[in-house]
């Protein structure tokens, strides 16, 4: 199986026993696993290993392959929910990254890369981890041949950026220029916390992809004609507000007359990305997280411990199950929680044929949804929906 076959949906079969008769016509369904897990470390590794087995086994998918793990290090590295480290509230936890790397190595992955484009970070990802208070060795020493790549910056391989076209033309952009690390990847894993999001309603494995857009191309203050040598700002201007276009060296929006508001734009951008750069495995951490928003906000957000993991081969299927675990309806449309002020990312990705959000079509392994539901809206303070476009996200 080559990468294109894999990422176009067949790869999902490596993890799950797809039931063609139950699939929506253009939106695949694959099995999603749920596990209870109360802590990081050994308990996580055991739970994740069992979930991957329930999804069909890691080895069939990653053996001999280059595996890229997109982690989530959103926001600024100095903002915490209360006294808690970001990895216990808003970021992918380094011990879960290390645990997954360990399992990937055991399953025969040839090369493992951990990638993220932290906000305006211009240096190495390792430096960001050090600044943020992580021990990079929790990740780097989890297996041989582990690399860390800051995807904000031009890739140091054959070419700095590669163009990824969005199937069916895309919602907002027809194509995106991304780090060529993604082009060299055989298997992409999206690994993030289960959270709400002020602009997109929820931030799960699809929304995590917003951070793969390099801020040297999609960041504020980039030049008009070419990528910036290093990031000068976040993704608000081009991403959230649409107040300008990327440099002319990259594709412009399909229709610049569409609404210039984050609740319209961000769900479409991340749905586009999910279609253009398909994810082979979504791993969602609900062991510890926050309710109320995606970033700490005194008076609104609250640290919570749902004690649950959700994983699947299809990002829409997996996010749909995670939404249900959060106490939300993945079929909800704009105006209904958690999409009060935005469009439903899952629906938009579904429209691009990425996967179905219909829980009736998705087989769940492990724990039943109803046994692990943790209603996020029962926690945190009043949601403060900000004016569209005013948020900073990774």
């Amino acid at each position, binding site marked *: 199986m080559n990468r294109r076959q894999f990422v176009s949906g067949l790869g999902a079969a490596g993890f799950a026993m797809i039931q063609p008769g139950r699939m929506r016509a253009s939106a695949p369904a694959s099995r999603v696993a749920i596990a209870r897990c109360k802590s990081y470390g050994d308990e996580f590794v055991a739970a994740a290993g069992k979930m991957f087995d329930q999804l069909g086994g890691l080895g069939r998918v990653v053996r001999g392959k280059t595996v890229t793990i997109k982690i989530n290090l959103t926001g600024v590295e*100095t*903002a*915490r*929910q*209360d*006294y808690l*480290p970001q*990895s*216990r509230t808003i970021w992918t936890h*380094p*011990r879960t990254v290390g645990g997954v790397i360990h399992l990937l190595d055991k399953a025969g992955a040839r090369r493992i890369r951990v990638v993220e484009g932290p906000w*305006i970070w*211009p*240096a*190495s990802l*390792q*430096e960001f981890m*050090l*600044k943020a*208070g*992580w*021990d990079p060795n*929790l990740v780097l020493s989890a297996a041989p041949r582990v690399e860390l790549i*800051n995807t904000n*910056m031009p890739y*140091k391989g054959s070419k700095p950026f590669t163009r990824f076209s969005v199937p069916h033309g895309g919602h907002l952009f027809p194509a995106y220029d991304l780090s060529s690390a993604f082009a060299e990847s055989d298997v992409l894993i999206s690994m993030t916390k289960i959270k709400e999001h002020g602009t997109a309603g929820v931030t799960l494995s699809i929304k995590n992809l917003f951070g793969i857009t390099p801020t040297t191309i999609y960041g*504020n203050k980039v030049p008009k004609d070419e990528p910036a*040598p*290093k*990031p*000068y*700002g*976040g993704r608000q201007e081009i991403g959230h507000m649409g107040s300008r276009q990327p440099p002319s060296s990259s594709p412009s929006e399909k229709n610049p007359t569409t609404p210039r508001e984050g609740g319209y734009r961000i769900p479409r951008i991340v749905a586009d990305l999910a279609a253009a750069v398909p994810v082979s495995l979504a791993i969602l951490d609900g062991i510890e997280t926050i309710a109320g928003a995606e970033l*700490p906000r*005194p008076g609104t957000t609250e640290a919570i411990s749902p004690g649950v993991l959700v994983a699947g081969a299809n990002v829409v299927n997996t996010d749909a199950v995670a939404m249900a675990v959060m106490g939300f309806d993945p079929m909800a449309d704009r105006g209904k929680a958690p999409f009060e002020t935005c469009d439903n990312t899952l629906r938009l990705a579904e429209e691009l044929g990425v996967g179905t959000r219909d829980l009736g079509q998705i087989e769940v392994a492990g724990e039943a949804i109803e046994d692990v539901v943790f209603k996020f809206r029962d926690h945190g303070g009043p949601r403060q929906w900000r004016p569209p476009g005013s948020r900073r996200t990774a």
Partner: protein
Amino acid sequence: MQLENAVPLRWPSGPLEIARRGKSEGFDPEIRQTLERWHDPAALEFLNGTAVDCIAISWAAGLPADAEQQRTAGPLIDAARRRNLAVVGWVDGAGDRKAAIAAAKTAGIEAVAIGGAAGSSDLPAIAWCEREDVPWDSTASAVAIGGNVWPGVNMASGGGAASAGPTSVPWLDSNGWYIQMARARLKAPLWLTFDPPGKGEAVLPRSHVKAICDSEAAGGRWVISLDDKLRSGLAAATPAAIEGWKQIAAAAAFFKGHANWKSYRSLGLMGVISDFAGDNFGLTGEILNLMARRDLLFQVIWKSQAMEQTFSGLQALLYADSTMPDPALRRKIADFMEQGGLLLTSPAWGKEGKPAPPDFETQFDVSAVGKGRLAVARKAIDDPYEVAVDTQFLLSHRNDLVKTYNGASSGCTRYTASADGKTALLQCLSYADGGRAGLRTIWVREKYRSARLLTIGGQPAPIDGQPSDEYIGAEYHLPANAPQNYVALEFER
């Protein structure tokens, strides 16, 4: 009285101040009345029981009003002396120095603040100057330097949004870097002179407190200068003004009570060498400013003193002066590098060693030399921001000593230790005026035997270090009621 640890308050009053300010924009009857009231000895009342033990009065400015000022200031000076307040007569550059000093002596003033190196004077002198003409070798009772900024988050004019640096990060105005630079050279105690911003509008007392903290944390002493509204309120003894003054006085008392902190040495791992003259001051000074904002802790090394100073304990040196050091100093710097240090410098140094580029882009060519690294700028160094950023990356956050979480507009952290090394002091500043960013955590790489939290107006309280979840070091969780703008952690090894 000894002026070395005095807490001075600028005391504008009387005919001379009225004459000086009378033609300035915003001068109004209220200000005039306040200047008159402050010339009355009764105005000293609000200083009772405070740490302020020195008033700096206007004495001469080369104006016709000088004589009347000196004639009418007698009761104020006498009243100040009865209250054990030292009086410093401020002599503007245009004033007749000899006549002013003679008159000050006659009036019983303790000291005069006069321009330049102060020279010979029958009275103790404060050498008063701007940043451009500091008499570095002055043996005056203190050197008072002007040309400073009002500490805070720099707000863009008109828009109300915090003005941004190249990366949209709010810009902090601080004098801390300059104070550290100046104190590394001055023999005399350093006073800072600067006034509240604005033309007549009220300045929040906490802004004055920030100005005190910014100066004191770096080892300087601000000649406290109150805004017109607060002076007016104090003259009228309004409750709001008195309450505001108490906050300011509490900050002054706090630092006066910790005078020994001024002798502590920086624990920064980054040494910055320069002669700080001419263009080198402009460039390297701004690099220091930007390093301080990024909490890249540094030690200032004046080139003229570098041969006598040890580089032990440093991990990196920056030498950005346009002219290369003399052979002996170059050899000393090269030895530091070859023994494992990092040297960042300009192209004039020349390239050596084997290329050893980092895995991210910088404006330096990095090579391995001996056990250390040499980073030579590819072109003449002209962007202080890029130098500060690249220096921090090349030194690596692996070497961070301190991190602050949820510090609103924090920066310019000072991390110092006593001469015997038994006590370390971490002073954390926040320049925000607004609400809280949340509960704050201070991470410190070194694990100490014990720690105390010190706050202005509060009792020192033991605070336990928590093991860091994912990294080395210890975290200190500040209580929710810890003041936002300044806290100190005092550690015992």
